[in-house]
């Protein structure tokens, strides 16, 4: 199934792109996706453990199971204000 993955700030610098459509296996969790991404792009590991993640524009935990069409983002440390 396909998801849409967004990159922001330092993660965009590492990935070299704003977003991508990505194929993930059915039943994959947020934490599985993070492991896959850091395998491809070790530069994402700058922040240490898994950063906060959002699925469909809401914060979610690492155990959340992904679904077809989800919009997913891992969020570098926020710095608004």
């Amino acid at each position: 199934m396909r998801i849409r993955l967004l990159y922001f700030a330092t993660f965009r610098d590492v990935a070299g792109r704003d977003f991508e459509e990505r194929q993930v296996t059915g039943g994959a969790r947020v934490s599985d996706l993070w492991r896959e991404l850091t395998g491809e792009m070790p530069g994402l590991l700058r922040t240490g453990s898994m950063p906060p993640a959002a699925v469909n524009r809401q914060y979610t935990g690492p155990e959340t199971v992904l679904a077809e069409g989800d919009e997913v983002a891992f969020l570098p440390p926020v710095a608004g204000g």
Partner: protein
Amino acid sequence: MIARLPVHLTDSPIDAAALLAAARPSDGGVCSFFGVVRNHHLGRATARIGYEAYAPMAEAEIDRILQGLASEWPDAQVVVRHRVGLLEVGDVAVAIVACAPHRSEAFEACRAAIDRIKTTVPIWKREFHPDGTSEWVDPTAGLPRERAMTDL
């Protein structure tokens, strides 16, 4: 997901006077906070700051924060504006205006608003120095890892 117009985020200068006019006739206290781009950060000079947002999520997250404030301080009315784009020193990056019948609620709701916005709203800033270098600001950089991850 349905596209929505930006409410809390703006790429235009924030009109402080217009926001302050939000007080209702029953409000006796208006507490506001303006976060301004300052000329230094962690001992280095700052020339400009670029703000980037995950816009639809930032809008939704600010909505969520406002709903929380409304339940904790039911008499307070809070308005938020956050700039995105490239800002100069002295520009207002974020404005919060909290109106309430009495000053305690206004102060408390305003302070909680800015604290929560800084902690959870997906906005990032890139600091540009006078020497041409720049980097993304990581407010958790100086904190122990535990603290950083639980600050959410």
